[in-house]
C-alpha cells in the first residue's frame, strides 16, 4: 500500500487508552465523593463548604495520613489527581466521541474533527493545570 503511515492517531490512541484507564479507575469514586456524597448524606453539609473545599485543594485530608516526612506532598496530591482525571477524561472521551461523530456520518470531516477534538482536550487540560496549580 502506498498510503502514508498515520503517526498522529497512534499517539492520541495512546492518550485515549491512558485516559480510559484513569477514568475507569478514578472517575466513579470522584463523582461519588464530589457530587453525591452530600446528597446521600455520606458527608455533612459542613464538609462541602468553601473552607473545607479549599483545605481539600491544599491537601488537608491527606496531611494527617502522610506522616511528617511526606507532609510536603500533601498540597500536590489533590492537584495532581484532578489534573490526571480532567486530562485523562478529556483525551479519552473526545477521542471516542470523535469516532461517534465519524460513525454518525462525519467521516469525511477528519481534517476538521481531529484538530477540534484534540484541541478541546488540550485546552481543557491546560486550563485544569492552570486552575489547579494557581490556587490562592
Amino acid at each position, binding site marked *: 500500500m502506498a498510503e502514508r503511515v498515520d503517526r498522529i492517531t497512534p499517539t492520541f490512541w495512546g492518550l485515549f*487508552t491512558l485516559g*480510559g*484507564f484513569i*477514568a*475507569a*479507575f*478514578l*472517575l*466513579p*469514586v*470522584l*463523582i*461519588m*465523593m*464530589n*457530587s*453525591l*456524597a*452530600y*446528597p446521600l448524606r*455520606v*458527608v455533612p453539609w459542613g464538609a*462541602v*463548604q*468553601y*473552607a473545607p*473545599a*479549599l483545605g*481539600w*485543594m491544599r491537601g488537608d*485530608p*491527606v496531611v494527617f*495520613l502522610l506522616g511528617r516526612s511526606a507532609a510536603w506532598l500533601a498540597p500536590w*496530591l*489533590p492537584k495532581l*489527581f*484532578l489534573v490526571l*482525571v*480532567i486530562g485523562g*477524561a*478529556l483525551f*479519552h*472521551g*473526545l*477521542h*471516542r*466521541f470523535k*469516532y*461517534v461523530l465519524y*460513525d454518525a456520518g462525519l467521516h469525511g470531516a477528519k481534517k476538521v474533527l481531529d484538530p477540534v477534538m484534540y484541541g478541546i482536550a488540550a485546552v*481543557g487540560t491546560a*486550563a*485544569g493545570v492552570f*486552575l*489547579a496549580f*494557581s*490556587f*490562592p
Partner: protein
Amino acid sequence: MATQTVRKPYVRHRSAWWWTKNPRYLLFQVRELTSVFVVAYAFLLLWQLWALRSGPESYDAFLQMWYSRPMVIVNGIILAFALLHSVTWFAATTKVPLFRIHGRPPPVALTIGIYVAIWIVLSLVVAKLLYGVP
C-alpha cells in the same frame, strides 16, 4: 484486466439504524456514548475549580447549583455512565493480554478480577486519602 465483465454488482448501504439490529450493537453505542458523560464531568470539574478559585461567594453560588435537585440527578446519571465505562473498559482491555502463560493469554476472568481489585483498592484509597471517608 482486459477480460470483459458482465457483472453488475449490487451495492447495499448500511442502514442508519444498524445499531438496533442486536443487543450487542446497542450496548456498543451506549458504551461509546459514555464518552459524552466522561467529558461532561471533566468540564464540570473545571467549572468547580474555577468557582472555588474565585472565592467564597462564587463557590457558594456554585454549591447552590451543584446540590440542586436537577444537578444531583444529572450527576447521578453521569455516575451511572462512568460506572458503565469502567466495567466495559475492563472487559474491553482484556483483549490486549498484559502477560502470557505458556504463550496463552490469561483467562479473561482473571484479568477482569485483577482490574476490579485494583479499582476497589484505588477507590477506597482515594476516598480515604482525599476525603477522609470512610
